Structure formats: structure tokens, C-alpha cells
């Protein structure tokens, strides 16, 4: 028999940690609300029964607000898991139980995992588990997910619940509301049972109807009779409560019920002192210090990842791939008497192509390490708060900042992180703008051109970043006043307590992100390098020719005129812009292969000297501008399509980005030529 358990709880309550504990997987855990942006599945490890666990995004209530809340609620309502495991943060029990009061209404068995019991103890609070079980009429298991405590007991109890659920006769639901509301619920419940064919719990539908829930009204085909009844009940409640809003009255009732439960089972220490977290916030979110502190942190992060530690690792990887691996394979191929073309394919094509990309992996890993550190500590959520006022000026909320910051590593997770943004307009805007922030894969391209043409100009690298950010800001302003009109949604975000990040967690997190780059190097770039090398070594009749007469050159010459106004209408450069769609690093690999050197490093002297044949200083700059702004790689385009959930928006965005890139590239080259640069 297979069972399905769904993990449901507030954002940042430790669901994913618990999920990892139960399933033995290493899902990404962060310390900001909304880390789990899509549902994840796993199987309970080392268990005789076949139990599937679904980790749902965190939600505060079942009145869906953001996309992830809709996702979580739809799953519970439509898929009907056998048991809902409701994770309740012990240190924040009052607020967390609000969701519990709603989950209780589904008619699906609920078990409460009272998490972070260690933190509860540290605070000197006490929770009477038995009493809590009695008041809620739900099984409660204390857990410490980070240490794996209570997890086995939780699963065993949940299993018992699932196995006995069908045998259990309908119990009278716990009375959470006062007489007036209970009466209305019962009244509507009876009608719902009679009229609706939906496979939903009638009591839940009744409560939702009272709350005037749009979603349920759409799903259930409400009869006129029922609708009238709902209106009558709502009016009656409104009258009974001095014309207070019905939703507020119901919410208030829920919180009253919770206060009642809490007063019986929780012993709180009534200390009014500031917590450590508050003390940190006093400094970090101070109105004067906040921005300087943030800028200082970002400066350190980039300085260490790119200039100091990162730079040091580049030489090391070059040596490893070029000399050690490349050298060994080359010797071996020569020794085995391999044909020239095979030697060329392996050394110049594949190792050259992958090498050009791999040199950046350590730098990216260091950057990812820092970003993970910021997320896990809880600072990332504050950054959103700090940046909100600034972002609001160009039509975005502070929540758009997190995707963009993640986007400096890779646009794909950046675009996915937009799910936490509730407002559709803000979300779309953030998806359109995030690729303008130069991602890690574009570094190799810039680094190569900087080494070749701007070696003595230290300002050019930060300038590229500033141009990217500037384009994002101007595009934001443009979109705000055209297709995506209106102000950004009001900013509301829970700030998690600061936590000392655990090295293991941060490393896992870093590895998850960095892994994608290595897989890319091993797959897309591996194949692309091979294919590009083959295409540039043979002509249409498959005889080996000079690159100038190859198939690739023929293809390149067809598209090259498009880029003439930008100054790089040479077939190799044109080919590189197109192969960049596979992955931006492929641009480096392409140019490397096409200039006939199986070199691993973007700053290799022979690559640099031959690249100067295809580009002038000015056309190199316009090429960088084009790469910065044009459509991102296929992986990011795929992420865009998923998040927009619309081909129309995806193509509009790609058109906008590429069109803008072409125009700006042309402007750079034409104006530059006129004033005599390059």
C-alpha cells in the first residue's frame, strides 16, 4: 500500500530540513521565507512501507496570496494526501497555529510536528504536548528537524493515522468559532452536502464560502439558492458584529481559539527584552547604516570571489586542465597513433572548449558560497527590506532584489526565485529584468575581451556591471509606464531570526548551485565544443578544410551581415553570438576553437592575439554590450517560459532584450566610430 504525506507549514518553519531528514535527500534549505518554490517529492528512507513525502512551499494561510500559496493549497485540495504533516514552529506557535486551524477543516487527517523544540527550551518556554493535543484534538509530535529528533516517531504516528483514518467514524469537529458563526457554518454545510458534487469536505467549503473565497466560488458551481444563503449568513454575522467585516471576524475567531489553546498549554517567559536578532536588526537595518553596510558586504563578497581568492584559483585550474589533463591525453593520443583530426577534436575542440569554462567554476563556487551564507544567515530577507524603497522608484518591490542578486550567479535560479513575489505584474517585470544582471556564465566572455583589449583599463569590468544594472533600471521605468503599468504591490515580508549558518548546509547549498555549471560544462559545452570544431573543420562534402572554407564559415557568413552595424560582422563573431544561446560560456569556447587554438584560458596570449584579428577595441566593446543585454541562454529562456507560463511573454521578452542589445551595440559602434574611438 502506498501512502502520501504532505508537509505543510509556514514559510521558514523548517519544512525542507524535515523533508531532508525524512527522505535523506539534500534539498536546498535557506533562511528566508519562500526557499521552496515548487513542490518536491521524496520517499521515506529505510521504511518498510512505501511512503511518498511531498514538500510544499510555505504558506501562512489557505487564502492564497502568492503563486506558491496557490500551489500548496491546490495540491491539498485536489490531490488529497493521506496525511497532512503540519510543521508548527514552536517558538512562533501562536501565528503558526493559524494555518493549523484551517488545515483541520479539510477532512484530511492532520498531525502536528512541533518543530524547533530546542529553541523553545533555550528561550525558557515550556509547551505541554498532551494538553496541546487535547485542545487541538490532533496528534502532536515534538521535533528538532535540524538534529533529526522526533522524526521517526512523527512518521510512525502519521502512518498509524493514515491506516486508521478510513476506519475512524466522523468525529465532531473542534469548535473554533462562536455560536453565531458555527450556526451559519452548519447551515451552509448542510446545503453544500446536498448540492455540491465536488469531492471536497463540505464543512471546509462552507467556511470558505463564508470567507467569500473567490477560488472556491469558481471551482464549485454554486447554485442561486446556496449563494443567497451565503449572502444571508454573511449579513447576519456582519450585523451581530457591529458591521465588522466577515473575513476579519472569522480570522479573529481563529486567533481567539488559538489564544485559548495557548493559554492552556504554553508557558511563556514574559520578557520584554530585545532578542539578539533584534539587536542585530537595530544596526543592520538602521536608517543611516543599512545601505552602507549592505554595500560593504557586497563589495567584500565580490572582491573575494573575483579578485583575490577567485583569481588565485584560475591559474590553478588552467594548469590542471591544460597541462595535466590536456597534456596527458594529448601524449596518449599521439602515442596511440590517433589521426590528426581526432587529436584536433579532442584537444582543440573538447578540452579547449570545456577548459575555457571550467576555469570560472572555482570563482563561481566562492560567489555561491557567499550568497548561500547571506541566505542561510537571514540577511537576505533584510536586504529585500532595505532595497524596497529604492526599488519602488522604478516600479518594483524589494522582493525583486533577491532574484536579481541570485541572478549575479545564474539567471535560472534567479528567475525561479521570483515565485515569492505575489503580484503578477511585479513578477513579470522581475523576470524580464533579472537577465540584465550579468550572470556568472557571462564572466568568461567579458574576461576574455577585457584581457584582449582592455587589459590596462581596470574600470571596464565594474562598468559592465553598472551598465547592466542601469539597463535594468531604465527598462523597469520603461515597463512601468507602458506594458506593466501601476505601482508595485505593498511590501510585506516576514523576517526570520538570524541564525548562525551551518557550514554543512551552506556547502550543500553552494554545491547544488555550482553543480549545475559543471554539469553544463560536461554536457552542453562538451557537445557544443565538439560540434563547433567539426563544423569548422569540414566543408559540406565532409572533406577536411581550413576554417575559412568550412560549413560553419558558410553559415556564419549568412548571419554575419546582421551584426555589421555593431562592428563585428565577421563570421566567427556572428557564430559566437548564436552559440552563446546554448550557454554564454560557449562564446569563449567558440571563439577559442575558431581562432584555431586549443587553449583553455581566456587570457591566453595566443587567443588574445588572434581575437584581435576579428575585433577592434570598439567592436569588442559593442560585442560585450550585445552579450550583456541580448537573450540569455536556453536554460534561462526555459526558466522564463516556465515562470511566465506564456510563450507570448517569453517571446516578447526575448525580442525586447535582443532588440535592445542590437540597438545599443549599434549605437556604441556607430557613435564610437564617428568620434574616432577604436
Amino acid at each position, binding site marked *: 500500500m502506498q501512502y502520501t504525506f504532505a508537509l505543510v507549514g509556514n514559510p521558514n518553519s523548517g519544512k525542507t530540513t524535515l523533508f531532508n531528514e525524512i527522505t535523506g535527500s539534500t534539498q536546498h534549505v535557506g533562511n528566508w521565507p519562500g526557499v521552496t518554490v515548487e513542490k518536491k517529492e521524496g520517499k521515506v528512507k529505510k521504511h518498510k512501507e512505501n511512503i511518498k513525502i511531498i514538500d510544499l512551499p510555505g504558506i501562512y494561510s489557505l487564502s492564497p496570496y502568492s503563486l506558491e500559496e496557490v500551489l500548496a493549497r491546490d495540491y491539498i485540495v485536489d490531490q488529497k494526501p493521506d496525511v497532512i504533516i503540519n510543521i508548527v514552529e514552536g*517558538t512562533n506557535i501562536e501565528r503558526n497555529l493559524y494555518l493549523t486551524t484551517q488545515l483541520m477543516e479539510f477532512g484530511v487527517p492532520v498531525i502536528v510536528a512541533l518543530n524547533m523544540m530546542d529553541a523553545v527550551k533555550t528561550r525558557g518556554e515550556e509547551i505541554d504536548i498532551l494538553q496541546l493535543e487535547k485542545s487541538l484534538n490532533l496528534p502532536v509530535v515534538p521535533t528538532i528537524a535540524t538534529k533529526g529528533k522526533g522524526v521517526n516517531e512523527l512518521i510512525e504516528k502519521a502512518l498509524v493515522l493514515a491506516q486508521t483514518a478510513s476506519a475512524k467514524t466522523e468525529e465532531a469537529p473542534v469548535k473554533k468559532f462562536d455560536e453565531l458563526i458555527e450556526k451559519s457554518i452548519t447551515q451552509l454545510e448542510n446545503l453544500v452536502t446536498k448540492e455540491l458534487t465536488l469531492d471536497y469536505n463540505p464543512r471546509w467549503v462552507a467556511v470558505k464560502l463564508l470567507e467569500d473565497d473567490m477560488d472556491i466560488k469558481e471551482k464549485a458551481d454554486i447554485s442561486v439558492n446556496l449563494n443567497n444563503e451565503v449572502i444571508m449568513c454573511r449579513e447576519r454575522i456582519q450585523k451581530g458584529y457591529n458591521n465588522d467585516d466577515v473575513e476579519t471576524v472569522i480570522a479573529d475567531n481563529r486567533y481567539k481559539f488559538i489564544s485559548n489553546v495557548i493559554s492552556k498549554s504554553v508557558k511563556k517567559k514574559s520578557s520584554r527584552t530585545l532578542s539578539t536578532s533584534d539587536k542585530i536588526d537595530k544596526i543592520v537595518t538602521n536608517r543611516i547604516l543599512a545601505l552602507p553596510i549592505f554595500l560593504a558586504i557586497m563589495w567584500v563578497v565580490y572582491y573575494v570571489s573575483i579578485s583575490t581568492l577567485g583569481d588565485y584559483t584560475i591559474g590553478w585550474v588552467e594548469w590542471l586542465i591544460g597541462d595535466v589533463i590536456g597534456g596527458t591525453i594529448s601524449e596518449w593520443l599521439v602515442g596511440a597513433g590517433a589521426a590528426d583530426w581526432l587529436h584536433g577534436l579532442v584537444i582543440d575542440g573538447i578540452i579547449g572548449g570545456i577548459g575555457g569554462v571550467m576555469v570560472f567554476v572555482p570563482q563561481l563556487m566562492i560567489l555561491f558560497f557567499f550568497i548561500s551564507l547571506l541566505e542561510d544567515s537571514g540577511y537576505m530577507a533584510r536586504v529585500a527590506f*532595505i532595497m*524596497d524603497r529604492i526599488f519602488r522608484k522604478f516600479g518594483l518591490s524589494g522582493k525583486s532584489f533577491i532574484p536579481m542578486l541570485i541572478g549575479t550567479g545564474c539567471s535560472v535560479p534567479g528567475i525561479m526565485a521570483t515565485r515569492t513575489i505575489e503580484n503578477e505584474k511585479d513578477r513579470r517585470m522581475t523576470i524580464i529584468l533579472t537577465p540584465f544582471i550579468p550572470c556568472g556564465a557571462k564572466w568568461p566572455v567579458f574576461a576574455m575581451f577585457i584581457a584582449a583589449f582592455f587589459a590596462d583599463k581596470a574600470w571596464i569590468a565594474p562598468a559592465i556591471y553598472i551598465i547592466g544594472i542601469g539597463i535594468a533600471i531604465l527598462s523597469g521605468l520603461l515597463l512601468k509606464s507602458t506594458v506593466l503599468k501601476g505601482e508595485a504591490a505593498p511590501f510585506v515580508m516576514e523576517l526570520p531570526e538570524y541564525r548562525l549558518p551551518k557550514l554543512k548546509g551552506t556547502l550543500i547549498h553552494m554545491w547544488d548551485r555550482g553543480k549545475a555549471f559543471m554539469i553544463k560544462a560536461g554536457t552542453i559545452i562538451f557537445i557544443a565544443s565538439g560540434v563547433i570544431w567539426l563544423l569548422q573543420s569540414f566543408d559540406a562534402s565532409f572533406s577536411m578544410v581550413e576554417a575559412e572554407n568550412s560549413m560553419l564559415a558558410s553559415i556564419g557568413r549568412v548571419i554575419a551581415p546582421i551584426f555589421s552595424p555593431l562592428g563585428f560582422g565577421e563570421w566567427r563573431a556572428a557564430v559566437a553570438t548564436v552559440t552563446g544561446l546554448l550557454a554564454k560560456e560557449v562564446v569563449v569556447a567558440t571563439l577559442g576553437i575558431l581562432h584555431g587554438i586549443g587553449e583553455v584560458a581566456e587570457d591566453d596570449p595566443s587567443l588574445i592575439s588572434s581575437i584581435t584579428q576579428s575585433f577592434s577595441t570598439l567592436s569588442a566593446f559593442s560585442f560585450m554590450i550585445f552579450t550583456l543585454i541580448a537573450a540569455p541562454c536556453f536554460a534561462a529562456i526555459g526558466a522564463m517560459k516556465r515562470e511566465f507560463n506564456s510563450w507570448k511573454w517569453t517571446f516578447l521578452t526575448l525580442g525586447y532584450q535582443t532588440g535592445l542589445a542590437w540597438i545599443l551595440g549599434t549605437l556604441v559602434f556607430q557613435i564610437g566610430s564617428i568620434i574616432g574611438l577604436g
Partner: protein
Amino acid sequence: MPLTMLSIGKEAKINVCRVADTTRKYLEGLGIIPGVSISVISEISGNLIISIKGSRIAISQGIAQQLMVDE
């Protein structure tokens, strides 16, 4: 008075929540409803970090202006 007028560190009770529909439901889920004690931890150009039911929530000035509180 609106929450924006409450000085940092002082505790008050929410009186009325004038925020529009969907956002209000979200606020309810976060425990921001009339009758609840609230205090302000810090402020940056109008945006606030508030303390409510033991958690810390960042809200924009727009929302703070629509939350009426009594000291």
C-alpha cells in the same frame, strides 16, 4: 493614529486595518488583525519592521499608514 506615528519601541494595539482585500487576508495569516499588540523595531524611510505575536515582519509605508493603532 496610523502605525507610522508610533514611536520605535512603544507597544500599541491594532484598532482598524484599512488595507485592501487580498493583502488584508495575507496580513491576517501573519497575525496582523485588530486587537493584537504591535510594536515597531526599526524604520527605514517609512518602511517598518514590526514585532507581532513573537515574529518580525517588514511592511511598507503604504500598509503602515492603513493600520490604525491605539497606544
